[in-house]
């Protein structure tokens, strides 16, 4: 049948490193451009073109940076665990690289969420840090990222590091809801419920627009950073292989008549 000759695109085509390189190179500028444009729009709407909160005043604008960062912190951990599972099951190096390179980006978003949460807390709670359930569980999530990254760094052999780190990511992912639940419980036991909640009434659409723009910008920024980091990592691995080959050659091939001084 002539139809059989028509090539069907499957997920495996994207898993081919050479194809990935080409696609990543084409997608990257769009993702970056989109992230910057939407980010600028979101910040404009968030900082200038949205109402101040009747209770919190202008500090509520921290939300447009803070809430999407907290979402991305969880999203990156989930996608790290999903890539890890894919890498663990199909033993595909691209999935391993995706998981590895997601970790620092996710940790960055987590740190941003913690930092802006702390900046928000100062005027709201009167302290840089309150052991609020959400802040605390995000802090633990940050340490989960650090543990994952530390394990990758500690194991010299890349394949072994990928498998072991994948197991850790999956175990961590399974534990995230339990940690979240336990911290909520801990918080309700130990702390009087006197904190002014950031999320009072249902959110108005004038606040939803910048929030939506910002989450899209963050997502595109994640895609752009991930693609760039994955290409870098793969180039670095190729370079390391070439250097290994170079290091072997002079020792084995000695030109006759070459005089060493």
């Amino acid at each position: 049948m002539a139809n059989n000759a028509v090539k069907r695109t499957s997920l495996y085509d994207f898993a081919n490193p050479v194809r990935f390189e080409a696609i990543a190179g084409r997608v990257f500028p769009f993702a970056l451009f989109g992230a910057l444009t939407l980010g600028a729009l979101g910040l404009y709407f968030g900082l200038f073109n949205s109402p101040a909160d009747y209770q919190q005043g202008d500090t509520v604008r921290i939300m447009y940076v803070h809430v999407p960062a907290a979402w991305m912190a969880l999203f990156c951990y989930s996608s790290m665990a999903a890539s890890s599972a894919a890498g663990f099951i199909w033993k595909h190096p691209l999935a391993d690289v995706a998981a590895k390179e997601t970790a620092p980006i996710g940790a960055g978003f987590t740190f941003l969420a913690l930092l802006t949460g702390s900046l928000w807390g100062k005027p709201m709670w009167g302290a840089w840090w309150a052991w609020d359930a959400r802040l605390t569980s995000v802090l633990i999530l940050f340490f989960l990222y650090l543990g994952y990254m530390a394990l990758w760094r500690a194991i010299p052999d890349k394949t072994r590091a990928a498998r072991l780190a994948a197991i850790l990511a999956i175990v961590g992912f399974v534990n995230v809801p339990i940690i979240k639940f336990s911290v909520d419980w801990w918080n309700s036991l130990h702390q009087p419920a006197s904190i002014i909640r950031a999320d009072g009434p249902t959110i108005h659409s004038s606040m939803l627009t910048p929030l939506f723009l910002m989450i899209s910008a963050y997502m595109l920024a994640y895609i752009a950073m991930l693609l760039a980091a994955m290409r870098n990592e793969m180039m670095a691995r190729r370079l390391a292989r070439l250097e290994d080959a170079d290091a072997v050659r002079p020792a084995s091939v000695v030109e006759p008549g070459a005089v060493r001084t």
Partner: protein
Amino acid sequence: MNAFAAIIVRDVALAFRAGGGALQAASFFALTIVLFALAIGPDLTLMQRIAAPALWTGALLATQISLEQIYRPDREDGSLDVLVETSDTLAFVALAKAAGHWLSTGLVLIAATPVLALLLNISGAALVPLILSLLIGTPGLSLIGAFAGALTAALPRAGLLIAIIVSPLYAPILIFGAGAAAAGAAGDPQYSANLMLLGASSLFAAVISPLASAAALRFNLD
């Protein structure tokens, strides 16, 4: 099941012989409590209030420093290869290793707790909930810790890395454990809820940890 018991007996025997870590972990536990008391000063009422959280934290840290000993010596002398090659189900081996660790560390820490609790001026009514919470919670610490030990079995200096990996995963057990001890001492009705959640955490670890440890061990052989 015979092999299961044999692994436990072997690990406990090794831990209590010269160079084993059982008594070192207990000494470390005692020393953390002493250092902690030195840091807060001789205020007995304050000590009584923070005795249970301090003892829970001390037991957790003492467990952490002993985790490196679960798999690394076995990997170095080759017995891990034998265990992996000869076992039908590696997850059962991992469960036995965690059980051996608990018997030689967790149980020893619990045995040391009443004395240390006396030093911290804990009341008799608070001691029972504390011991009970440790009895239910420390198996979970050993299980999750054994997983971290399995992950890092091939690394020469894994102590600090194990602490970084395992501490976030310990958060629920610490919260429910210290919570149960505090609620029990205060006669709070949330005591039993905390104990049950603590038991659930330990049981959950008993399912996840052997499977994950077995997967990790396979990649840590040469």
